[in-house]
């Protein structure tokens, strides 16, 4: 009886061992090719020093889709630009540039310009007319020139504010308006920016046609730069426009044109432009806009509170002769020699009784 029981127990043990071995076999066999592959890769890596490529078709497919090594085009039944590209890795480059470079450095640049202006104002103060006002006037800007200027100002700031909201709104406005509030604001700003945008082209063209004549650099402009624009006590001679104004004019022309061209590429995406061109256009658009907005702070400062008597040249069209002598002496001499100085008290030097505000010349 005991012998029979021992035999039964021995068979059970054998059966158990068989089951365990079978289980071990089933679990181990699929790992054998992997182990061989890893071993082969290790061997290959020890020889070449490079990680091995896995011959897994799914990995190959994903690598093709992800396109880390540049964009490659496949075929598609659908029609449209970039239709053969599933994932464009350069979009990530653009996103990172926008988030990590354009936004923080753009904000820092704008803040630096505002800070510099404030410091300058604190230490230098307003540039006043030391001679006082003479009461005699000179026509500086015609009505058409002033209309073009203020038209450009209106369009520039409409686009500037909506553009800044689109660029910095997520960081600045979501905490204030909430996500839904910002989505409404962003939608409104996007539509406004896109619709008003093309008018900036008209503004830049008008500015170019009306102001280019007197904005070419001359030798006197180098001297003006060397003397710091007369801001530090030394008189800097200048013609109708000084070198600072000319620099601003050319910045507007160059970066304004860049803004217009890239804006049209972004706004009317129906002419076959792909994502890469659009991303490049966006980068140029953002940099140009932030640069112009930043420099415009300086332009606004000098045109309003920075220099006494400047703003009236763009509102009434006329400047006081003391202002002209102080800041544009060469231009003043030309105008005075041609007898275009107006003395409201006695009529102008040509004997006319017209004066600022009613002179027909200001309406041309």
């Amino acid at each position, binding site marked *: 009886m005991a012998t029979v029981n021992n035999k039964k127990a021995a068979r059970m043990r054998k059966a158990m061992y068989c089951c365990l071995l079978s289980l071990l076999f089933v679990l181990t066999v699929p790992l054998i090719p992997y182990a061989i592959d890893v071993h082969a890769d290790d061997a290959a890596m020890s020889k070449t020093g490079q990680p091995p490529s896995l011959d897994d078709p799914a990995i190959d497919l994903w690598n093709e889709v992800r396109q880390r090594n540049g964009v490659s085009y496949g075929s598609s039944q659908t029609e449209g630009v970039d239709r053969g590209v599933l994932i464009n890795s350069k979009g990530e480059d653009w996103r990172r540039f926008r988030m990590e470079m354009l936004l923080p450095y753009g904000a820092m640049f704008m803040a630096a310009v505002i800070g510099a202006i404030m410091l300058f104002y604190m230490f230098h103060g307003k540039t006043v007319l030391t001679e006082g006002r003479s009461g005699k006037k000179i026509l500086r800007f015609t009505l*058409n020139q002033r209309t073009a200027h203020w038209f450009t100002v209106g*369009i520039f700031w409409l686009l500037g504010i909506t553009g800044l909201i689109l660029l910095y709104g997520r960081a600045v406005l979501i905490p204030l308006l909430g996500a839904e509030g910002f989505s*409404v604001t962003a939608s409104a700003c996007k*539509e406004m920016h896109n619709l*008003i945008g093309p*008018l900036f082209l008209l503004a830049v063209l008008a500015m170019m046609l009306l102001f280019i004549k007197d904005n070419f650099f001359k030798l006197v402009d180098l001297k003006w730069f060397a003397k710091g624009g007369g801001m530090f006590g030394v008189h800097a001679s200048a013609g109708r426009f000084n070198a600072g104004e000319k620099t601003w004019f050319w910045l507007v022309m160059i970066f304004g044109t860049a803004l217009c061209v890239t804006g049209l590429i972004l706004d009317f995406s129906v002419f076959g432009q792909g994502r890469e061109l659009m991303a490049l256009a966006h980068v140029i658009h953002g940099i140009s806009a932030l640069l112009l907005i930043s420099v415009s702070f300086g332009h606004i400062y000098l045109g309003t509170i920075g220099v006494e008597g400047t703003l009236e040249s763009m509102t009434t069209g006329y400047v006081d002769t003391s202002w002209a002598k102080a800041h544009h002496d060469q231009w003043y001499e030309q105008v005075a020699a041609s007898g275009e100085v107006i003395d409201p008290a006695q009529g102008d030097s040509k004997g006319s009784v017209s004066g600022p505000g009613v002179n027909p010349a200001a*309406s*041309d």
Partner: protein
Amino acid sequence: MFEQLVNGIFWDIALIVFFAGIAWRVLTVLRRRNHHDFSQPRNSGLIGAVMANIHGFFPRREVASRVRLQVIAGYMFHLGLFALLFFAAPHVTFIAKHITGFSWTAMPYWAFIVASEIAFAGLILLWVHRVLNPVTRLISRRSDHIATILVFVVMLTGCMALGESSAELKAFHRFTVELLMIYFPFSALMHAIMFVPSRTYSGAFFGRRGVNM
């Protein structure tokens, strides 16, 4: 709440004020009695009226070069606004649904964009010119500036609602339109309706006296 007000009672009030106001203004002009003209007519009043209406569309030769900007910007704004008002797809749908009951062919999207650009450019140029020109600034009243700003705001809110992604933006645009409709009959904006009878009357009056307007 705001949307309900704008789409409901406020719209009804604006519509009533708009049409009743225009009717009142037109009737006021028509009821003015003029002295009967017993003089022998030197020329046809009818021809004078027709010619005055036609000539009104062109600047006088003597001042044409001086008013070039106003004329060009004026045409840009008025033609652009007319096209937007009556041929923009959302407006055609809205007018058909709420006013006329029938619709007409709307302009394509690209034409809508062009019309908007032209209208915006024209309006901004006209207003900047009005403020900067010493003569137009002197003869402009507060109501002229209010009318310009109100029209600009209506156009701007319309532009903001263009994406049709937000009911709030659409309601805001409609609210500004309703404000404009209420203001319209009591302002210089009435020139949109009165320019024809005004030119006709003046043209006929002077035409009878042999004066070519």
